[in-house]
């Protein structure tokens, strides 16, 4: 295809390059100019990791063909300050701890810079509004907003420049605002994530994924893909050199689908080619014949008589059952004045870290297979990969690249094996960058869970017995299910002293996207049920929700659900602090009137509105702003 000649001013330098006619401005900056501070988080304008200025206007470079910037003045994160320096906005992000994983931060700094350029005296609501196109998954935004307000005040001269410097440390670091060491590399866009790294002669990998939830692979024809110019290798399960199988607990997942596919999105084949477009076209040319199999789509169906078997090793579709027993449950319920019984369900959740999965692999001159990726579990990955590629452990190396958000979702080795095999086949460095859609399709999710709950209480609010039964959808592969079930069981009945309990947590195989590790690791699903039950019990007994928790809370000397004796306990102080800071009005949950004194205070979250920028900008009849 004919190339497009583009000329523009990028960060004050005149650049001129020929590029493909469809190149996006994002690709032009990252691939042609090596300005990788601008990130790709979604490719669809949703996340803001790619925000740049074009002729002074902030835009999303993933939605802009590079041709549109021909002749324009482009400013990226790299061009905000001179090398070695930071702008007040960048310094403020450093000061307040606004950068965590850092992947959203270049875009966030650009949006903050734009907000203060458009309105140097923007209030907090307008700042929030102007940052609305940029997503962060680590911070909850509070520290980012603090940074923008700090930068605004310093730029306006309302605060001294020294306000951007680190706070002095007194007797202890505890209670002191200490700046993160890695923040300058993130606010300046200099930190290289796996997708930002380039190696000489590197190939691009793309993966063919299953369109079926459960199907036998009848045949795979890779001949057309292999015949394409620029394709260096096409791999399937047949190319795995060693004993295949990975997983955090049970090694039940193949590097590439073997014999059958078990969920929509499972990797079936992969291509390494000279460039991304060739790799994508080659993947589209692979022909797979499937024979669809009946599937299991609801956890409650997995263990029914005659349910389809998903893994041969687990004919009952059981991933893991964790039982916990303590005391005498029958006696506990017999002693209760009130027995409550209810069901709770929680849904599948995607981590949606801003950095989609990415990685590089190569074989070094000593035949060491090296994988660079934002893995949250590199030592375990290294051991598993050694078996999969049939190499001694000293010939396998994992390098952990900066993790642009993980939250548990990057614990699973869902692509590193593919990279390693492609590198071994081609003896060239290979890189794979997931698209956002691919990341959502293929990576683990939070376990959807159903909890059946039975709680016995005396009239004074003391819990006499609990029966807690959780059924979780583990999806197609085991991943972290076993650990998640263990944690859910340990935390099941909450921080309350319960002498008689019967707890069962179970994860089963289905043909849904695999469930895995996700912040709280099973605790959230259990606590949603337990804390809801506590509030419902308070209502039924006419008690204050704080009071019923104090009656039951674990104290020093209490035994946990798994019989550990506590040497320290702080729930009393937690409850006191929570009660005080929310200005709680004492009483049962259901007896308040329409107006509550503890709602709508200065520290409560207001409903979302937009239009803060209209405030105080009345217009004259000619359309100019009225000057007060």
């Amino acid at each position, binding site marked *: 295809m004919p190339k497009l000649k583009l000329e523009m001013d990028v960060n004050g330098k005149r650049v001129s390059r020929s590029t493909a006619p469809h190149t996006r401005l994002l690709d032009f900056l990252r691939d042609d100019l090596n300005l990788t501070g601008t990130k790709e988080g979604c490719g669809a304008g949703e996340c803001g990791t790619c925000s740049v200025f074009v002729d002074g206007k902030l835009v999303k470079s993933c939605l802009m*063909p590079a041709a549109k910037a021909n002749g324009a003045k482009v400013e990226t994160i790299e061009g905000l300050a001179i090398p070695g320096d930071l702008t007040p906005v960048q310094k403020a992000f450093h000061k307040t701890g606004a950068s965590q994983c850092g992947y959203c931060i270049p875009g966030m700094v650009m949006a903050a810079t734009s907000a203060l350029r458009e309105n140097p005296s923007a209030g907090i609501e307008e700042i929030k509004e102007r940052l609305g196109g940029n997503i962060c998954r680590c911070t909850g935004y509070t520290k980012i907003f603090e940074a923008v307000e700090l930068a605004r005040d310093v730029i306006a001269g309302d605060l001294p420049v020294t306000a951007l410097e680190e706070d002095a440390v007194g007797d202890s670091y505890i209670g002191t605002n200490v700046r993160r060491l890695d923040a300058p590399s993130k606010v300046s866009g200099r930190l290289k994530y796996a997708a930002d790294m380039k190696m000489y002669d590197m190939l691009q990998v793309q993966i063919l994924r299953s369109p079926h939830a459960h199907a036998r692979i009848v045949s795979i024809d890779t001949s057309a893909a292999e015949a394409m110019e620029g394709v260096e290798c096409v791999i399937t399960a047949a190319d795995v050199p060693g004993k295949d199988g990975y997983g955090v607990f049970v090694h039940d997942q193949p590097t590439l689908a073997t014999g059958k596919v078990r969920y929509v999105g499972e990797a079936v084949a992969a291509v390494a080619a000279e460039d991304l477009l060739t790799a994508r076209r080659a993947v589209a040319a692979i022909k797979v014949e499937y024979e669809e199999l009946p599937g299991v789509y609801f956890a409650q169906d997995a263990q029914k008589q005659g349910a389809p078997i998903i893994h041969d090793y687990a004919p009952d579709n059981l991933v893991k059952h964790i039982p916990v027993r303590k005391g005498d449950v029958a006696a506990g319920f017999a002693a209760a004045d009130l027995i409550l019984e209810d069901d709770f369900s929680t849904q599948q959740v995607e981590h949606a870290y801003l950095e989609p999965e990415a990685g590089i692999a190569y074989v070094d001159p000593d035949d060491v297979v090296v994988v660079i990726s934002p893995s949250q579990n590199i030592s375990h990955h290294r051991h598993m990969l050694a078996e999969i590629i049939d190499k001694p452990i000293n010939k396998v190396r994992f390098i952990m690249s900066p993790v642009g958000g993980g939250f548990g979702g990057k614990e699973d080795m869902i692509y590193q094996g593919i990279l390693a095999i492609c590198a071994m086949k081609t003896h060239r460095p290979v890189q794979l960058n997931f698209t956002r859609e691919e990341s959502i399709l293929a990576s683990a999710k939070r376990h959807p869970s159903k909890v059946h709950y039975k709680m016995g209480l005396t009239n004074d609010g003391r819990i006499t017995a609990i029966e807690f039964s959780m059924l979780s959808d583990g999806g197609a592969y085991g991943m972290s299910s076993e650990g998640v079930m263990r944690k859910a069981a340990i935390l099941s009945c909450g921080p309350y002293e319960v002498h008689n309990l019967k707890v069962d947590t179970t994860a089963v195989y289905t043909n849904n996207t695999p469930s895995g590790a996700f912040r709280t690791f099973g605790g959230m699903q259990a606590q949603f049920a337990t804390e809801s039950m506590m509030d419902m019990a308070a209502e039924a007994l006419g008690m204050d929700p704080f009071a019923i928790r104090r009656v039951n809370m674990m104290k020093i000397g209490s035994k946990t659900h798994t019989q550990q004796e506590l040497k320290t306990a702080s729930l009393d102080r937690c409850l006191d602090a929570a009660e005080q800071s929310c200005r709680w009005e004492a009483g049962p949950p259901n007896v308040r009137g329409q107006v509550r004194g503890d709602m709508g205070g200065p520290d409560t979250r207001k409903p979302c509105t937009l239009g803060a920028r209209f405030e105080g900008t009345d217009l004259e009849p000619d359309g100019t702003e009225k000057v007060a």
Partner: protein
Amino acid sequence: MLTCDTYHMPTSLHDALALWAAAPQGSKLISGGTDILPWAREGREGDVHLPALIDVTRIPELGGHVISNGRVRLGARTVYQDFLTQGTLRLALPCMPYCAIWFADDQIREQATLAGNLVNASPVGDGTPAVVALNGEIELARLVDDEIVRRVVPVIDFIEGPGRTQIADDEIATAVILDAANGYGGSFQKVGLRRSLVISVACCAALVRTDRDGRVFEHVRLALGGVGPRPIRLERVEAALRGELVSRRLIKQVSELAADTVASRSRQEYRREVVVNFVRAALEEALENQPDVQVKFQDEGEMANA
């Protein structure tokens, strides 16, 4: 992934029309590009290869705006952010700033054009109800014997269904022509899954003008989006208010008329409830947003708990 053989950036309307008329089958026009790039991704169209993309944003004739004879002519390059930053447009098109602030985000608004939004003809396009409330028309141009020939179509007729419009294969949208509604109060209501960057489940645009004392409805314009395949103008509600005393009771009562307009395929019951509340909120907000008029609700105080 969107790929193409050629990317054209014509710098005159004539050149653009000539390129477009001669473009190979499957070529596309591109304006802001904020919809076409996400369209060519997994889950929607997947990887798409086009013979040619013809970019219409460097055509000088499509820029700027002119206000004359009670109408505003917006060049097709007009982007959503212009309704927030350009004072003359904010005054003449009082529902557009509220529509724009709920549209995508500041960055996408710098690229996304109103004309592109109308030509895409999504049933949930935010611009459509606002334009319909402003008695909007779209101007289309084509080449006949190498001469530029233009026609103007009311937007309410132009959009025939999801993704379907009256634009001909060789035409390019060149302008959007709207009533200059200076003095009206404007409002825009929208519900989606979050605040920024969200497509409407339903939306409602309103324009209201009372007498100078703020007691009598003189003109009311209401339009809905997201509740059916085509844009909807709420003429029954408008007629029921014209000449009536402003009261919260009347607003509540006429808002109920909007429920029966819901004809979308999904979530009908939800949308029926939403549009009734939207019409009520839109009318009340548009009343309050009138410049230099203090509204007097006839039944002020009585309806506090309604």
